[in-house]
């Protein structure tokens, strides 16, 4: 017997442990849990009102309206006159069977949506008739309403949770609404509030016999909180108006706080299209439009080469690294030769020949030779190009480029600022500053999104720091406290290097590329950019009209707004991007527009022909590929 002690001991031990566990489960926690899934308890939800959304001037952007859904609990249905019922709901019998099976296969015991968002007239009528049909009832829900037809990309929309979320998330059940895209998604838990639950006892005939445990487990609904955005809805609407007929994005930021004043993407859509019963056909149309891509937020998601505005960053890095100073001059001979091969030549259109160009002029006239020289000096300062590129990359990234900015909207792109390692991996030969010389003028491997460019502009305007851009100013009327948006982020370039760059940007408006976009009484600083773009047609590279870029901030001495704008195929930066920017700045700072003729021209200007041309080329390409594969 002594030898069997171990097994006997273990049997006793396990017995005690298991019975204690049963005690814990059944007596301490005893049958009081998981009230949602019990057949003897009926749960009724009280949906709180979703929070409203306002712009920075307390103008209402998103409100609520009531909507009524017909719900079904398959288990409780009794034989019914289908024909009468169908005519009541205005559906046919096939549809009825389909809807019933869908609900039945989801969960027999739980409510599912049978028919959603009834018209108001139908509701009044149905409310009387429906109690006759066991297992059906009407659930009141709240849907959105947009007083201003604008900012769809920022606001996002709400729609029913999909089955995956309903199954895997503890909060949501089928038919409930959840924020998709934009602020509605990002701040879902704030806007939503918490639904209240009332539990009722039920007998085996499914009749409610009273409140469950005297309402001990009932919860009250917690209303959703209102949001105040940093957006200025007038500026936003004006930006959208100016962008009509064009594709591109505008991002405006308040440099001192990082608040996003406007976030325009074009083309966009009316947010009211995604409300109510018409949501689903409309959303299919909008999301499947692969030509205009109205649901693609170009301000956040489009990655382009930044072009000339990036030269300012290279100039600042040059100053910080000490490889140039304001007296350093480069003589430009219509371009910059960086190798012996005949095509190793970067053309320049600054038009100043025979005398040395200094930094200020180089920026305002956008001289390629100057920045190619600067870039080489930065990289070659270090013992090898890998380390040199790393140093350069670190500076550039300190302006918020090359990675997600961390703003409070759910979509975005990283952009790209290459480092030494990137080129080590890409090239299997010895590479150097000349291999990557395109970075000097913001082409090549450098890529940014418009919001990154706007943030970069804000950092320049602030002389060396920025706050992470954000879209929400107040939650429930209390200023946001998230340290992500209240922490000052310094660039690695010291403040004393900025004034010369700012002077140069000012010169762009007084004497340089943007002089026709000056606004009387406002000192604007800006920088034009033009980015080449190509598509591949039948294996051939075809050049399309350049993208038009512009960055600006104003006023010069006390910056209140920093803007980056990108117009696809808009041509030279000064022709479309600069005037639009100047109009926006005028509107924001002065409240009205004096240069009506420019305004009119910009609104009416349509680039649709350009886009049609591109589309034609692309379709041709598909056709040729199709014929070839035949």
């Amino acid at each position, binding site marked *: 017997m002594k030898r*069997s002690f*171990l*097994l006997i001991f273990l049997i006793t031990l396990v017995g005690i442990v*298991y019975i204690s566990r049963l005690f814990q489960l*059944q007596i301490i926690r005893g049958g009081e849990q998981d009230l949602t*899934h019990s057949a003897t308890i009926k749960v009724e939800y009280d949906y709180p009102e979703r929070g409203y959304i306002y712009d920075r001037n307390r103008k209402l952007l998103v409100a609520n309206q009531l909507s009524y859904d017909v719900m079904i609990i398959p288990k409780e249905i009794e034989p019914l006159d289908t024909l009468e019922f169908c005519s009541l709901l205005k559906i046919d019998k096939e549809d009825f069977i389909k809807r019933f099976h869908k609900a039945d296969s989801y969960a*027999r015991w739980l409510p599912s949506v049978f028919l959603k968002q009834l018209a108001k007239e139908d509701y009044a009528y149905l409310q009387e008739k429906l109690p006759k049909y066991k297992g059906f009832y009407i659930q009141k829900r709240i849907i959105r309403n947009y007083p201003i037809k604008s900012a769809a990309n920022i606001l996002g929309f709400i729609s029913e949770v999909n089955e995956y979320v309903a199954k895997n998330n503890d909060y949501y059940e089928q038919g409930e609404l959840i924020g998709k895209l934009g602020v509605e998604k990002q701040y879902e838990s704030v806007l939503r509030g918490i639904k209240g639950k009332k539990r009722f006892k039920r007998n085996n005939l499914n009749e409610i016999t009273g409140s469950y445990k005297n309402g001990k487990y009932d919860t009250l609904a917690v209303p959703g909180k209102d949001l105040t955005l940093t957006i200025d809805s007038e500026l936003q609407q004006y930006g959208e108006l100016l962008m009509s007929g064009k594709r591109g994005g505008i991002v405006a930021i308040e440099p001192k706080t990082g608040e996003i004043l406007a976030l325009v993407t074009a083309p966009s859509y009316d947010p009211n299209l995604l409300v109510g019963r018409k949501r689903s056909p409309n959303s299919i149309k909008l999301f499947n439009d692969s030509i205009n891509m109205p649901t693609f937020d170009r301000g956040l998601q489009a990655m382009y080469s930044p072009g000339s505005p990036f030269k300012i960053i290279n100039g600042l890095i040059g100053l910080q690294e000490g490889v140039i100073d304001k007296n350093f001059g480069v003589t430009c001979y219509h371009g910059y030769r960086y190798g012996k091969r005949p095509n190793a030549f970067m053309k320049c259109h600054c038009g100043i020949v025979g005398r040395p160009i200094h930094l200020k002029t180089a920026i305002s006239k956008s001289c390629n030779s100057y920045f190619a020289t600067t870039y080489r000096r930065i990289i070659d300062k270090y013992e090898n190009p890998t380390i040199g590129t790393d140093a350069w990359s670190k500076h550039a990234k300190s302006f918020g480029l090359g990675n997600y900015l961390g703003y409070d909207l759910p979509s975005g792109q990283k952009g790209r600022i290459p480092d030494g390692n990137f080129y080590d991996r890409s090239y299997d030969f010895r590479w150097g500053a000349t291999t990557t010389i395109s970075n000097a003028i913001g082409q090549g491997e450098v890529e940014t999104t418009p919001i990154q460019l706007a943030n970069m502009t804000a950092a320049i305007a602030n002389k060396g720091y920025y706050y992470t851009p954000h879209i929400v100013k107040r939650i429930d009327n209390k200023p946001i406290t998230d340290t992500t948006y209240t922490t000052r982020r310094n660039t690695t370039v010291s403040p004393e290097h900025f004034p010369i760059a700012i002077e140069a940007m000012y010169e762009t408006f007084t004497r340089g590329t943007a002089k026709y976009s000056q606004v009387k009484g406002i000192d604007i600083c800006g920088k034009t950019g033009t980015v080449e773009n190509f598509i591949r047609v039948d294996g051939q590279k075809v050049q399309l009209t350049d993208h038009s870029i512009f960055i600006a901030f104003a006023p010069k001495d006390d910056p209140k707004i920093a803007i980056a704008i990108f117009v696809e195929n808009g041509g030279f930066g000064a022709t479309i991007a600069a005037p639009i920017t100047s109009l926006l700045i005028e509107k924001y700072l002065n409240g009205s527009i004096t240069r009506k003729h420019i305004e009119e021209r910009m609104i009416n200007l349509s680039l649709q022909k350009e886009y049609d041309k591109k589309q034609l080329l692309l379709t041709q390409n598909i056709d040729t590929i199709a014929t070839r594969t035949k």
Partner: protein
Amino acid sequence: MRQERNNIFAGIDWLLVLLYILLVGFGWMNIYAASSNEGTREVFDFSTRYGKQLIFIGLSIPVIIFILFFNSKFYEQFASVLYVISLVLLAGVLVFGKKINGATSWYNFGGIGLQPSEFAKAFTALALAKLMSDRQYNLKLVKNQTKAFIIIFLPAFFIALQPDMGSVLIYFAFFFVLNREGLTLAYILFGVISIVLFILTVYFGAKLILLICLSLISIATLYGIYKNKRFIRFNILKIISLYLFTTLFVLGIGYTYNNVLGQHQKDRFDILLGKIKDNKGIGYNSYQSEMTVSSGGFSGKGFLQGDRTQGNFVPEQHTDYIYSTVGEEWGFVGSSLVIILFMILLYRIIYLSETHTNKFGRIYGYSVASIFFFHIIVNIGMVIGLLPTVGIPLPFFSYGGSSLWGFTLLLFIFIRLDAHKKYDW
């Protein structure tokens, strides 16, 4: 005397038979609750699960009589033959078997499935008993230990190929038997330490645990040196191998866990250890069964009154999760009673084994107790959320003919051997 020997019911331990009847009967009631609903309550409806289980229970009566019919010497003499047959069946199922739920564990005879692994346990126990009851057998010798290990390992190997990891686990139960017969506890201790290390490594990551283990060994070594200056000279090999082995083992676990185990197996551990909280996805079964047990409260909701059982909230409730029905409908009272009944069963088997003068009967009885014990720990532990999800049946409760007959075979061979013990000298 002679007459008694010819009566197959002579000397039978009626307490075990009574426990058997109680457990099987109560088990069937719970299967009835779990697999019927308001529409189908007809007891003799043989198209339903509970109806089929009734047939299985009915068929176990001839099985029992058949078992009792043989002389106890038969089992001793034919142990090797039965063992070989079960090995052949296990190998054969890999070729001719039917794949259900990703495992090839079933023979299919015109709609009737048979699971050879359920019977192999009993025959392995017989073979082990036969080997170790030999007068020449001395478990102190490594050669003899190896023989015993091979007998245990072979069927486990074939079952692992099916793959049915739950059933493989059961073969570890035989270590209790070996221990009872004199195998040093070090093996079990080693096993326990391995399991503890495994859990800690999964939970805290290989690096940290390795660091802690190596520091502990170093401290122990330093203490040894402090106590006895020549400690290191005498134990250098042991210490080095301890270091090496620990390192390899911990890193091996880390590797196995991350690269060899399937995602579903990893998930089961992660849920149990609380690394993932997931009530509706992968942790659904565990969560639902725990909730179902807990909803029973003190006295349960009553027979056929469990709304979670009736609402089919727990997947596989009639087989591996049958104990959750007990928990819901019979509450703390009923589910503790089941545990107590099982404990009495185990104690009784051990007690009777120890009274055997014949080594064969004792070893076999001990094997039976150990196997039942393992099944009960793993299955109930899983249902009440103390162990990860491992699909093995609860003896006499879970739905299925093979498992019921397998356990019946296991128990009644023992009852047969036990009935004859007084003539064994």
